[in-house]
């Protein structure tokens, strides 16, 4: 077996979750992640904890085949057994290992909105950090293909981004995050982009390889009614639930998207924004810092950590950093700042062309 799989499993069990005896550790994934799941199973056993495996071709608790044909009145709420599991798991790992990243794209939008609303109960205790959790991926052909790579190339990239000295990275990011936390306003500027967002009083969290693997970002939930201006995501396409959008342009007033255009799939974009009240507000502002990630991969988990990028997420905010926005949507959209972009804190430039000046 690839020795990196064992190191990866160790990182997830020991650093990200720090599994404790007797815990019920819920893992959701697909069968494609088998080598990693088996290794994790061994490590969880050695730590004297339970493995609650939720394996399906769709990501538990969703099943797109079921959702396509079940009566609409059943879609909006998880079955009681699954709700109970969400409420009683002591830790959770999400291991994305898709065989096709477009899965679910054929589900009618109104059905998708219902099942996504039902899924919220699964995220409730992790969005608030009530329990330890991690989201990660296992290399599959589908992820490699989206990234424009062969599987071995993608494996190399994934392990390079994950198997690093997280303590050292954490120190570096905490130093940057402290500067952001002491500012009142963040400005993202660049070609066709000029967006200001208030962050006063909000906490900046550093992902030093705990809740996401790879980690490598620091982020906050900005003040919900402060975003003003325009941001254009012209460098990379945005991807959400199997849909791809080129050249999204969002205009904000008092925190809300008041105008949204896209060169492709604009109708879908608008339907996502209209899914609920919170979907038009920013739930997260994040700064990508992972030196192992330099290129766009059509993969939110990695792309939001590109060194020299920033991302905003439409939808749900994180209560642990002060966020109050509620939504069934949480859609990270990544903006490359490495060519002509800059970040200002209260008027002072702190990053230019992706390079830190602090």
């Amino acid at each position, binding site marked *: 077996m690839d020795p990196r799989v064992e190191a990866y499993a160790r990182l997830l069990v020991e650093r990200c979750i720090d599994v404790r005896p*007797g815990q*019920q550790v*819920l893992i959701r994934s697909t*069968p494609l992640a*088998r080598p990693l*799941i*088996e*290794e994790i*199973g*061994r490590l*969880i*056993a*050695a730590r*004297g*904890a*339970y*493995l*609650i*495996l*939720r*394996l*399906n*071709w769709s990501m538990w608790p969703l*099943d797109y*085949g*079921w*959702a*396509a*044909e*079940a*009566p609409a009145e*059943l879609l909006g709420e998880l*079955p*009681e*057994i*699954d709700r*109970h*599991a969400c409420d*009683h*798991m002591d830790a959770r790992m999400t291991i994305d290992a898709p065989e096709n990243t477009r899965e679910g794209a054929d589900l009618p939008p109104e059905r998708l909105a219902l099942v996504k609303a039902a899924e919220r109960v699964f995220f409730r205790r992790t969005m608030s950090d009530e329990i330890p959790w991690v989201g990660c991926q296992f290399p599959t052909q589908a992820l490699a293909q989206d990234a424009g790579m062969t599987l071995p190339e993608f494996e190399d990239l994934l392990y390079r981004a994950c198997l690093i000295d997280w303590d050292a990275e954490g120190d570096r990011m905490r130093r940057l995050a402290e500067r952001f936390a002491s500012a009142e306003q963040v400005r993202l500027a660049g070609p066709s982009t000029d967006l200001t967002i208030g962050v006063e009083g909000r906490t900046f969290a550093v992902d030093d390889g705990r809740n996401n693997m790879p980690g490598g970002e620091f982020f906050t939930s900005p003040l919900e009614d402060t975003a003003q201006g325009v941001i254009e995501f012209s460098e990379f396409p945005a991807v959400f639930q199997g849909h791809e959008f080129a050249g999204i342009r969002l205009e904000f007033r008092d925190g809300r998207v008041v105008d949204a255009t896209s060169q492709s799939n604009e109708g879908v974009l608008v339907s996502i924004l209209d899914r609920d009240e919170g979907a038009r507000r920013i739930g997260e502002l994040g700064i990508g810092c992972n030196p192992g990630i330099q290129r766009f991969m059509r993969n939110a988990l990695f792309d939001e950590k590109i060194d020299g990028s920033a991302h905003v997420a439409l939808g749900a905010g994180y209560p642990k950093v002060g966020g109050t926005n509620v939504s069934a949507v949480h859609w990270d959209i990544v903006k490359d700042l490495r060519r002509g972009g800059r970040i200002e804190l209260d008027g002072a430039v702190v990053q230019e062309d992706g390079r830190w000046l602090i």
Partner: protein
Amino acid sequence: MIGSVGDQRVEEYAKLLVERCVDVQPGWQVVVSAEPLGRPLVDAIVRAIARRGAYALPRLRFSVPSEVEWLKEAPLELVEELPGIEKHGWDEADCLIVVIAHENARVGSDVPPERVSAMRRAVRPYQQRLLDGTMAWVGCQFPTQALAQEAGMTLRQFEEFLYGAVLVDWDALGAEMRRIAERFDAASTVRVVGDGTDLRFSLEGRQGKIDALGANMPGGEIFYSPIEDSAEGVIGYTEYPACYTGHAVEGVRLRFEAGTIVGASAEADEPFLLSILDSDEGARRLGEFGIGCNPGIQRHTRNTLFDEKIEGTVHFAVGFGFPDLGGTNTSAVHWDMVKDLRRGGRIELDGVVVQENGEWYL
């Protein structure tokens, strides 16, 4: 992917399972436990459940037993007790559909038997709901290379075999089995004679059950829980190996006195046989006597679900009996061993021959 999408038999199979075997009702929570290779059937089952207005809770597992790597290394006290989340699932599910689709029939055979037993002990109290009828359930198989190989067939042959055994006229077969069961219900002593075999036991006061569109797919057996202390004599499983948890034990021979196995031997893998018989008190007594009646199954395939229904065979399970059939034997074990009676075997009821060489005289 095998069992190519669009194979109409898969749709038919799924409908039979969901609509006739367990008859899913609106609002039910239906757990669908399956191995990944069962995917075409699982997809069809999940959709059939959706169309009945019920929740499908698919649970894939890499093998049976599941999570083998965890099972091998976890502290025994954890293996012996289900986690709360899984207990809750067992308590609350309305229905369970199990799809066996092995990728390798030997997976799990390297787990120490005491760990497999511990795991079975953990789940047994919860499986009571399957036995007492408060949770509808059905177990079935989906054709895979491993199951075909185990049966000595190509995948295509095994597909024909499997669908031939499950897509039968269940109403007609059910009526025929009921007719046979009535005779056994009325009898007290059963004697099974065959190669290396002369075993008597009592069914006095016990009622049989026929399996047609019941908990097993394919069905096609009549079964009883015999009077626990009645078995006397010997049985030699000379025709087929006795298959259990990845083991195929050749030439099992069991001698009974007053219902208990007092002598046990095997031509190969004898320590495994003995370790199972010693796993608890009830493992040395009979929990089931069954009669195979499925005309679509004529050959042994090292696949108990099918083998126990071979027309012209009987099977005895060591281990737990069925409370709903009056059985009182408790055990974590239930190991069905199949005896072919088609060449020189016979069944007598109270001294009257009712079956000889696999042919009924009723």
